[in-house]
C-alpha cells in the first residue's frame, strides 16, 4: 500500500510539475477578451526585437527575426516587452508608445489601441551592445480588408559576415571600418550620405557627412591630402608641432575640433514640434568607446568622402551643424 502511494507520488511529481507550469503560463497572461497579447523580446546580441520565443535552448545560437508587428486598425493589443539579456528601451515615437525601459526580469505591458493606419518605425533607444543601432523595425497597422504592407525588416549587418579590421595606419580605412562597425552607418547613411528620417527632428533627417571636408574649410584637394597625412601619421591635427601648409588652418582646426567634440560628447536631437515626442535618434557620446585617434580616423574618412569639386564654400554649409 505504502509502495503504491509512493509510486503515485513520483508519477504525480513528474507529470504535475510540467503541467502546472503550462497551465499557470496560460493563465498568467492578463489577456482581456478582446485583446491580443504580443510578446516582444529584446535580444541585444542579435540586435532585434523579436516575436519569437527566446529561451535557454535557442538563445545561444539562433538568429532571431526582427519583428514586423502587424495590427488591424482599431485592434486592441497588449505589448508584453521583455529582455533576453540587457537593458533595452522600446520606443515608437510616431504612435506615442514609450520610451519604455525594459530591464531583464521585469516585463512591461503596454495596452495600445491601433487608431491610425500606416507603417511606423520602432526603435531600441538605449545602447545595448554592438548591434544596438540595428535594433529597429516596423509596426504595420492595416485597415480591415486591406492587404498589409510588408516593409523590409532591418537586420543587423554586423551579425552578417564580419568586417576585417584594418590596421591603425590606414586612417581612412580604419575610419570607414569604425563608421560601419560602430553603427554610425545606420543613422548617417551609406558613405555618410544621410537621408535617414528622424521622427519629429528639427531637421527631419539625420545630418549627412559627405560634405564634412567643406564644412571644416578643407576645400582644396591638396589641403585635404595634407590634412589626411597628419591623421595618418597619428599627429593631432588640432595641435600639431608645426602648422602644415593649409589655407585658413586656424579655422580648419577650430571646425575640426568642434566636430571631434560633438562625436565625443554627443548631442540631443532637437524637436521640430516642441509638444511632440522626443526624436528617437540622438548622437551618443562616444568618448568612452572610441579613442581620440579613432575619432580622428572617422573624421579622416568623412574628409575623404569629399568629391573633387573644388568650389567655394557656400552659405548653406556655414551653419552650425557639422
Amino acid at each position: 500500500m505504502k509502495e503504491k502511494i509512493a509510486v503515485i507520488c513520483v508519477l504525480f511529481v513528474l507529470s504535475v510539475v510540467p503541467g502546472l507550469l503550462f497551465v499557470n503560463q496560460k493563465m498568467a497572461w492578463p489577456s482581456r477578451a478582446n485583446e491580443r497579447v504580443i510578446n516582444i523580446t529584446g535580444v541585444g546580441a542579435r540586435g532585434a526585437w523579436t516575436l519569437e520565443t527566446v529561451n535557454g535552448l535557442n538563445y545561444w545560437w539562433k538568429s532571431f527575426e526582427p519583428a514586423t508587428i502587424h495590427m488591424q486598425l482599431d485592434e486592441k493589443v497588449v505589448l508584453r516587452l521583455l529582455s533576453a539579456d540587457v537593458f533595452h528601451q522600446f520606443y515608437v515615437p510616431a504612435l506615442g508608445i514609450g520610451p519604455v525601459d525594459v530591464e531583464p526580469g521585469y516585463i512591461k505591458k503596454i495596452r495600445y489601441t491601433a487608431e491610425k493606419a500606416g507603417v511606423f518605425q520602432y526603435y531600441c533607444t538605449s545602447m545595448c551592445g554592438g548591434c544596438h543601432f540595428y535594433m529597429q523595425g516596423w509596426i504595420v497597422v492595416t485597415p480591415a480588408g486591406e492587404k498589409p504592407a510588408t516593409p523590409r525588416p532591418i537586420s543587423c549587418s554586423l551579425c552578417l559576415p564580419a568586417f576585417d579590421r584594418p590596421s591603425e595606419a590606414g586612417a581612412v580605412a580604419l575610419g570607414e571600418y569604425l563608421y560601419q562597425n560602430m553603427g554610425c552607418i545606420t543613422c548617417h547613411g551609406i558613405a555618410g550620405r544621410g537621408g535617414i528620417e528622424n521622427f519629429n527632428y528639427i531637421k527631419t533627417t539625420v545630418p549627412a557627412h559627405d560634405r564634412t571636408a567643406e564644412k571644416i574649410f578643407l576645400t582644396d584637394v591638396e589641403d585635404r591630402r595634407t590634412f589626411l597625412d597628419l591623421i595618418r601619421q597619428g599627429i593631432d591635427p588640432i595641435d600639431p608641432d608645426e602648422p602644415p601648409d593649409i589655407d585658413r588652418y586656424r579655422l580648419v582646426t577650430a571646425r575640426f575640433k568642434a566636430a571631434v567634440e560633438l562625436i565625443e560628447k554627443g548631442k540631443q536631437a532637437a524637436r521640430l514640434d516642441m509638444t511632440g515626442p522626443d526624436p528617437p535618434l540622438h548622437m551618443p557620446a562616444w568618448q568612452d568607446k572610441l579613442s581620440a585617434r579613432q575619432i580622428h580616423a572617422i573624421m579622416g574618412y568623412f574628409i575623404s568622402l569629399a568629391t573633387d569639386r573644388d568650389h567655394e564654400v557656400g552659405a548653406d554649409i556655414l551653419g552650425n551643424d557639422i
Partner: protein
Amino acid sequence: MPTARNITRWTAALLTVLAGAAGFCLLPGPDLPDDGVRRFDIKAEQYAYHPSRIVVRRGDEVRLRLASSDVVHGLYMEGQDLNAFIYPGRLLFNLGRGAAGAGYAPAEEMVFQADRCGKYRYRCSVTCGTLHPFMQGELIVEPNYPFRAGIGSAAGILLAGFLLMATGKRIPPAAGKRRLDLLRAAPPIGWLARRRWLQFALVLPGLALFVLFIIAGFWGSPIGNRNIVITFVWILWWFLLITVLLPFGSRIWCMACPFPFFGEWFQRRRLIGVRPDARRMWRGYKKWPGRFSNIWVQNILFLGLCTISAILVTRPVTTAAVLLGLVLTATVLSAVFRQRSFCNYLCPVSGFLSLYAMAAMVEVRAKDAAVCRVCRSKSCAAGGPSGWGCPWGCHPGRLERNNYCGMCLECIKTCPNGNMTINLRPFCADTRIKGTDEAFKALIMVSVALVYSVTLLGTWGTVKSWANVSEVGDWQGFLIYAGIIWIASLGIFPGIWFSACAAGRRLAGSHGVDVKTLFRRYAFLLVPLGLTAWAAFSFPLIMVNWSYILATASDPLGWGWNLFGTANTAWKPLYPGLMVYIQIPLLLLGLAFSLKRGYAIAASLWEGRKAAVLSLAPAAIVCTAVVMAFIKLFAG
C-alpha cells in the same frame, strides 16, 4: 579542568594573536595624496570596471565620474548605499538610493565621504549579461584595518599554535574524541531515523524541484539571475550545502539527492519497503572495477566542471544539461553496477562531500564495537528484513570515517541489535586521510577555491573574459585559464605541499615516516581550512544575490509570473559591510583547526613532541600562507 598552567598557555596564545593583529595594524600604509578630494573616472564594461580598484584615505571626499562603454550597467557602492544607472553614450548617469525609481536624478558625479576604513566593493546593479552577478570593483579606504588585523591574526595563530604545541602536557593531544548519542538524547530523531519513508519523503520535494529546474533551464529565460535553476542551485543550494548541510549534517545531502533516485528505484524495485531477498539482490550486478575504486575519476570530473564553471553557473541551459546528464548517467550505471557506484566513484559533488564530511559534526557509528564483533548477520552491510545493506558499500558496524557514508540511515533501520546511532561530535573529528586520491582532493579543493575567488569574486575583467569563453570566444585566454586551474591544482599546489612535507621530514630527522605518508596525512590540514575557505567564498554569493532567489521563487522561469509577490524584489546586497567580518573569522577558525588537528596527526606519526612539531612546521606555514592569500583576496 583548567589548570593554572593551561590558563597561562592560552592567555599567552591569545596575546600572541592579538599582538599579531595589532602589529600589522600599526604598519605604515601606502603613500596616498592627501588633498582631501579624490576624483576617479570609472568606466564600466562587460564585466569589469576600469579602474577596478581605487584606494583612498579615510576622511577623503570621493568623487566618481561614471561611464559605460557597451550596455547599461549599474554601480552600487557598498557602505554608502549609493546606486547609479550608467547609460552608454550619455554623459550623465542616474543616481539615487535604494530601489530604482523614486529619488533618482541625473548626475555628473557620485560624491561621498569615505568615512569608514576597510574594503568596499562597487557592484553592477543592472543585469548586464551573463557574468553580471560577478561584475565588481573595489574601493579601499586606508588604513584597511580589517585586512591588516586579519593578516596579523593569521600570523599570530601560527605562532600561538606552535606555542601551545610546544608547551602542551598531553602527547598526543586529545583530538575530537567526545561524542553525544543523538538518538538517545533526542528520541524523536531516533523515531524519524527508523522510518522507512524518511528518505523518500526527503527526496520527493527535491525531485519536484529537479523537474522544475530542468524545464526552467531549457525553456525558461536565458538570463542566469532570472532563472530558478541558477539561483536555487548555484546560490541557495551551494550556500546551504557548504555552510550548513556539510559542516553540521555530514553527507545529509546525499540522502535527499535526486540524482541516484531512479537508479536506486530500479535496482530495489521498491521506493519505501524492503524486498524479502534484500540480501541477495546484488546478484547480476557488476562490482565497480577495482582500478577505478577511488575518487580520481571524481577529481577529474570535478576539475572539468570547474574549468567551465563561469559558463555553468551563469547559463541556465548548461546547468540543466549537466543536471540531466548526471541523472541519466547515474540511472544507466545503476543498471550495470551495484548500488551507489555512481555516487561513490563518479559524482563530481560526492568527491568534495566525502572529503569535507570528515569535518562534519555528526556521524553514523556503532554504539558498541563489541556487539558488532559478535554479530553474525552483518545486516548493516548485507541487508536484512528491516532494511537494505549499506548502499554505499560500507560496513557501517566498523565505520571509522564519514567519507563514504551517505547518511541514508539505512543501517540504523537494519541493525537487528539496535547498535547503530547518530553521534554529535566536535568539528573535524575524522583526521585520517587514507589515499593519495583523497589528499589530492583536498589540494584540488583549496586551489579551486583560490581560482574561483580570483575569477568570480575578483575584479579582474580579463580573467572573467578568459573564463567566459562561450560568449567572448577568446580560446587562447580560456586555455590559459583552464591551464591555471589544472596545473595549479594538480601540479603547483601539490608540488608545494610535497616540498613542505619533505622539508618537515628533514626537520624532524627523517626517521620512520616517509614523505608519501606525510603528504597524505598532513593533507588533512587542508580540510578544515578548505571548508571554511569555501564557506567564506560562499557568503558573498548569498549576501549579494539573495534578491534573485526571492525573485525567481515567484517567477521561476523568468516568464513574468508573480506567484508569491516577490518577483520584483529589488537587488540590494544584504549587510555588505559585515562580509569581511564573517569571512576573516571563518578563515582564521579554519586555520586554528588545521593546526590543532595537524598536531594530533603529527603526534600520532612521530615519536616525541619535538619531531612532531618540527615536521608539521612547513605544512603549517603553507596553510597560513593560503589563509593569508584568501584574506588578501576577500579583504585586502
